[in-house]
C-alpha cells in the first residue's frame, strides 16, 4: 500500500504492508528509535507521537492511517542542535530516571502545552494520564512539566507541531 507522510518535517513516500504499525514504521523503516515500544497494548504511552498535532499511541495506529499526515517524534523536538524547552525542563528537573517512558511523556507534554500554555496541576495530571512511568518518578515529571510551561512562556519558541 503506497503512503505519503511527513515525519519531523521531512516528506516520505513509502510502500507498506497494511498491518504495519506506525511505531514500527518509525523505528524499523525510518530508523527513528527515539519512539519506544513499552507495553505494546495501548496502555503505557511510551510510543506516543504527535499525528497532525494530536498525541496518539503509535502502537495503536496503522501506518496506512498516517497517509497524508504529519508526524512529530521526539527526534523532531530539538532545533538546530538546541534542546526544546520541554527537553531542557525534563533534564534540569530530573524528570526521568531510566528514561524509557520519557519520549512519550515529552510528546504528551508538547501536546498539552500546544493546547494549554498555562495548565493547572489537575490539567497536567490528566494530560499525562496515558503515560506510565514504571520508575514512578512522577513528582519530578510534574515539576518538569510546570517548568516547561514556564520556559515556553518566557522564551517565545516555535510550537512543536509547526515546521
Amino acid at each position, binding site marked *: *500500500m503506497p503512503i505519503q507522510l511527513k515525519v519531523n518535517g521531512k516528506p516520505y513516500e513509502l510502500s507498506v*504492508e*497494511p*498491518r*504495519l*504499525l506506525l511505531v*514500527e514504521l518509525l523505528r524499523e523503516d525510518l530508523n527513528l528509535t527515539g519512539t519506544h515500544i513499552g507495553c*505494546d*497494548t*495501548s*496502555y503505557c*504511552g511510551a510510543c*506516543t507521537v504527535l499525528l497532525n498535532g*494530536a*498525541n*496518539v*499511541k503509535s*502502537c*495503536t*495506529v*496503522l501506518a*496506512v*492511517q498516517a*497517509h497524508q499526515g504529519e508526524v512529530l517524534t521526539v527526534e523532531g523536538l530539538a532545533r538546530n542542535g538546541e534542546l526544546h524547552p520541554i527537553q531542557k525542563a525534563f533534564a534540569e528537573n530530573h524528570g526521568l530516571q531510566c528514561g524509557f517512558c520519557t519520549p512519550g511523556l515529552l510528546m*504528551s507534554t508538547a*501536546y*498539552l502545552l500546544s493546547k494549554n500554555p498555562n495548565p493547572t*496541576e*489537575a490539567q497536567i*495530571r*490528566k*494530560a*499525562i*494520564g*496515558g*503515560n*506510565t512511568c514504571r520508575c514512578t518518578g512522577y513528582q519530578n515529571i510534574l515539576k518538569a512539566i510546570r517548568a516547561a510551561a514556564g520556559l515556553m512562556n518566557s522564551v517565545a519558541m516555535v510550537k512543536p507541531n509547526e515546521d
Partner: protein
Amino acid sequence: MYPAAFRYYRANSMKEAAGLLLELGEDARALAGGQSLIPLMKLRLARPSALVDLNFIPNVSLIHKPHQEIRIGALAHHAQIADSKIVEQVPILHDCAAGIADAQVRNRGTIGGSLAEADPTGDWAPVLLTLATDVHCVSVEGERTIPLRDFAIDAYTTVMRPGELLDEVRIKVPPKNSAGAYVAFKRCPSVYASASVAVQLTMQGKACEDARIQLGCVGLTAIRAQNAEAELRGRPISERTIQLAGEAAMSEAEPQPDMRGSVAYKRVLVGALLRRAIGIALRRCSGEHVEVSHEYVGRN
C-alpha cells in the same frame, strides 16, 4: 506485535464503505478510531480478513445543531466532542467525552466506533440513553434511523445488518429545566470503568418532573434503572429519596465479578456513583457550573 495479515481498503464515502463491507463478507471490519479493534487484532483476538478504513471519508466527523438536535458524525473523536462548544450546552455529553480512557485514546477513538462496538463497559451508551438519542445508519439499500434504546441488544451486538454502518448520532437537546451528570469510576486513566452511572433530571422547582438513570459496566448492555427513577419521579428530591434511589439501583445492577471487583463491590459502587451523579445533576439544574468527569484513584 503485528496483527494477522488483512486486506486494506480506504473508503471515500459511507455508502462505498457499506458496499465494500457487504461484498467482502462478515470477516471484514470497518476501521474507525481503531482504539479497540487494533489492540484486539494485535492480540489476535480479532482476525478480520479485510479492513475498510472510514477515516479518509470527508465530513463524517462534523458536530452541528440543526434546530434542537445535536448531530455528531460517527467519526468525531472523543477529544473533539469534549472541545465542542455545541456539546458544552449538554454537560453530560462533555462529562463523558472528556474522561474516556486517556488523552491519546480520546484523540483517536470515535463515538460511532464506541456505539457500534457495543462493549458492555463502553461509556457512550449509558450517557446517550438518558437523552432522546437516535443513531442514523446507512447501507447500499438506503438509510434508517434507529432509536438508541433499540440499537444494542447484547454485549458486542447491535441490530445493524451486515453492510450497514452507523454514520451519525442525533441527540435531542433537553429542555432548560433539565440537566444531567455522568460519573464513571476506573482504577486508572487508561482502562475501562469498573462501573458508571448516567443521570438526567428534569426539575419543576424542588420537585423532580422526570428522571432518567442508566448504569454502565454492570450488565451485558447499559441498564435502565427504572426502580431508581421511580424513587425520584414526581417527588421533591431529598437525602431520603436519593438514598432510596441508590439502593434501588444497587439491586437493579447485574454485575459480573472480574479483575475490576466483586459483585458486592460493584453494587456498592453503583449506589455511591448514583448518589454523586444526582447531586451534581441537581446543582446543574439550578444553574451551577460543575466540572466532573471520570474518577480514578490518585486524580485530584
